[in-house]
């Protein structure tokens, strides 16, 4: 990536889809994501939310960190890096992974794409080049940042399969969840994966930045026959909480950026124990994670349904109403589809067990006046919302 000296004149970068996004936005509600200017809300939040849940939403994913990892030892390197067993990963498949430091604290999570025998793409929320290179000593592996060289779009929602098929992307019907394949869209080569961060049926498209606008145009040309909406970060936040996905740096501190002792978190502590495989052979953080697993749990990031409909916002969580303070809400949303207040909360366990009953105390405003509310919280072990249509192959046609 060639960066000009004059880059300071434009603090926020523009993705290859930016002009298209500007043309659609009416809210002018922009956010910063990894140095890029992206919409928080494109047009109207409720429309964008329901586009994911009932139609088709398109989101610019370009700012997500992307790393190309290739070479003879690429697989061995990745196996050493991540906490998950990669034995089942094969070319054309994607898997969700997380990686830790020596102390078994999470550095980040992400999706790992195996593009061919020795070529992978790792997508992450935070900047990882330093850690990836540090971990690469002794491996014959090449690691390159491709964040700015690959344009990416998420196309999500029940009609995403129909919309993309209509837009000219062939062979989507055979694509199973977590499959990735080479394809094309109206003659433009691209990579398609059946992945997403919404918990709904959906795809992610990966292409050359120069082809980005043409692909966007092909998808939005379907409008008129199918409803397609561009979507911003706020709608994504709602649907990812419904899907029970965690957001590193927001739901927990990433280890490399943590200043205060014990403010970082292990995979077990954020509910990612299912990704950890202690038996797969050595990996970074294994010893610490094995020791942690042998002890009673200290805390968990817990999915909570909070009674009532008052906006929860920032809240403390207590063991019983007026009981001992045991945790804090990390993220929260009102779920329009479940008609419920959802939250992910960092909860301290008592004697290795989740304290019960849990109550949240939070402040909310009515015509400038602040009130304090108590609401009972109900812990969930499963994602809040998992629609059946998300995993059908071939997906339902509309």
């Amino acid at each position: 990536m060639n960066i000009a000296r004059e880059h300071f004149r434009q603090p926020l970068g523009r993705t290859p889809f930016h002009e298209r996004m500007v043309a659609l936005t009416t809210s002018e509600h922009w956010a910063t994501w990894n140095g890029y200017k992206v919409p928080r809300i494109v047009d109207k939040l409720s429309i964008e939310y329901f586009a994911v849940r009932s139609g088709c939403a398109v989101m610019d994913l370009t700012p997500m960190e992307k790393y190309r990892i290739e070479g003879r030892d690429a697989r061995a390197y990745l196996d050493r890096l991540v906490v998950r067993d990669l034995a089942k990963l094969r070319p054309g498949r994607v898997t969700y992974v997380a990686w830790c430091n020596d102390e078994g604290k999470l550095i980040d999570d992400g999706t790992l794409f195996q593009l061919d025998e020795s070529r992978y793409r790792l997508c992450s929320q935070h900047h990882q080049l330093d850690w990836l290179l540090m971990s690469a000593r002794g491996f014959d592996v090449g690691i390159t940042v491709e964040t700015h060289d690959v344009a990416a779009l998420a196309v999500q929602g029940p009609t995403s399969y129909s919309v993309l098929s209509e837009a000219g992307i062939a062979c989507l019907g055979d694509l199973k969840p977590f499959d990735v394949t080479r394809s094309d869209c109206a003659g433009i080569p691209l990579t398609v994966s059946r992945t997403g961060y919404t918990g709904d049926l959906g795809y992610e498209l990966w292409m050359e930045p120069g082809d980005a606008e043409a692909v966007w145009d092909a998808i939005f040309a379907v409008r008129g026959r199918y409803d397609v909406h561009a979507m911003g970060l706020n709608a994504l936040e709602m649907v990812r909480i419904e899907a029970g996905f965690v957001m590193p740096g927001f739901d927990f501190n990433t280890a490399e950026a943590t200043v205060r002792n014990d403010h970082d978190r292990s995979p077990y502590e954020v509910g990612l124990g299912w990704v950890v495989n202690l038996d797969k052979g050595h990996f970074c953080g294994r010893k610490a994670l094995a020791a942690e697993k042998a002890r009673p749990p200290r805390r968990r990031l817990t999915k909570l349904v909070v009674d009532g409909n008052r906006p929860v916002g920032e809240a403390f969580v207590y063991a019983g109403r007026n009981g001992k303070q045991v945790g804090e809400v990390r993220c929260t949303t009102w779920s329009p589809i479940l008609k419920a207040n959802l939250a992910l909360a960092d909860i301290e366990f008592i004697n290795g067990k989740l304290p019960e009953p849990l109550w949240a105390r939070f402040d909310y405003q009515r015509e400038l006046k602040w009130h304090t509310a108590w609401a009972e919280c109900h812990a969930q072990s499963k994602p809040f919302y998992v629609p059946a249509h998300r995993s059908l192959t071939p997906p339902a046609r509309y």
Partner: protein
Amino acid sequence: MSGRDYDAIVIGAGHNGLTNAAFLAKAGLRVLVVEKNEYIGGATVSRELYDGWKYSNCSYVCSLFRPEIYNALDLGRHGLKVVPLTASMTFTQDGDYFGSYSEPNVRRRELMRHSPRDADAAVRFDADVMRWCRLIRGFLLRTPPDPGSLKPRDIFEFAYLLKKFHELSETQICEFIRFFTMSIAEYLENYFENETILAHYSGGSIIGTGLGVYSPGTAYVLLHHAMGDVDGNVGAWGFARGGMGAVSGAIASSFRALGGEIRTGADVEQILVAGRRATGVRLASGEEIRSGIVVSNLDARRTFTRIMDADDVPPALLERARKFKIRGSSGKLNIALDGMPTFPALPGGSPLTLGHMHFTDTLRRLERAYDDWKDDRWSADPYCDFLVPSQYDPTLAPPGKHMATVFVQYCPVEPEGGWTDEKRAAFGQTVIDQVAEYSPDFRDLILHAEIRTPRELEDEVGLTEGNIFQGELTFDQLLFNRPFPGYAQYRGPVRGMYMCGSSTHPGGGVMGAPGANAAREILRDLRRPDTTPAEYPDD
């Protein structure tokens, strides 16, 4: 109170002397500050040496000054304004530069422009430095414990120290010890690979020291430049509007409003002692002023070897004072400019001219600059911290004109054959030539330059050897070892005699903390209510 002219006399109207005096006056004491110069401020001073221009003759930027003191002495209402600085940069020899911008996205992209890996490593670097800053900041407004003492207060303070360390993990404690004892070059090489980025971030660690970028102990000095803040932005630096003299001016104004008196042109020749008690001071004029409390803002070597009778100082202490590591290594140029110099490497409108500008782009060049100093020469290719504060501050130069301040590392205490005015001019020319390499019009814009070597810093300000920190900031001279073991609690060898300068904990920089901490100990001995502020919580 018969026989006493004042309750307390503070020797030296530097920022710490004034801070100390103000807190004593706030407790109701009758306090006199005596200053040898005709102007106050010590090294926190601004003077008009060229008609229409105001120079911050010594210290030139503000970050470490404790906000608790600022608030407690009401310095805002006494005229102090600290405007945050928004950038720093290093020019490279190939016509490019590295800029450290304050806007986080731009800062990151600039790091990426030089090294994508270093841009990512900066996250880890920032978190680690912040961890040490938080740790050390908790000790700034506290008196160091005497580790050998069993007094309840020392045990309490030592327990506080241990508790602070207990908050770190085992690995972090090891890392902290490494941090205190490593060189800045080695420390930074744990994070960065790009030569320019390494040079840029290491510069702050040699400022004011008799050490090079590869000398053990310089990593800590980085912290000394990173632990300050402007309005909560840790590590940020600011310009005091009106120059650094505005800082001492505001403290003096606050002190006077509390009933304090300042006498300038009053050079103290001797601290008077009778019966192992301080009884006052004798001025060079022969005048004696009586007081039961005498506080020295002078550096530790000067205090014990120059203004105390050798009979009043235990021989071991006198020996420590003679051997106190206080090596001059810095020079300074203050320049009146006919206009803003241009820097062709910088695109027009670059915000980088608003901050620190450096011209040394490799660790090797920085180390060579140090090599010259070891041989008693000024650096042929020095490390310069160049700023043009008049871009922000209309009080420093006439409209359209500018004032540049150039801090220079390294400059010897005494070049071979001693300083002469010709040598001083040649030193200044070396600095001007370096800047002019990057700014072709710089030389022609110079209307007047004040050139200061350690000789001037010692002769005018009274800093021994011209050491800007009143003693090296190395681990052997920090915390309960500053200035000497057994004398870290601001008390001198005779009753009623105290120290309040940067020679004492927590050390140099325009911080005010030594002055405030010393006031706390004095008021404690007098059984007066403590008027000094506690540190803001940093949880």
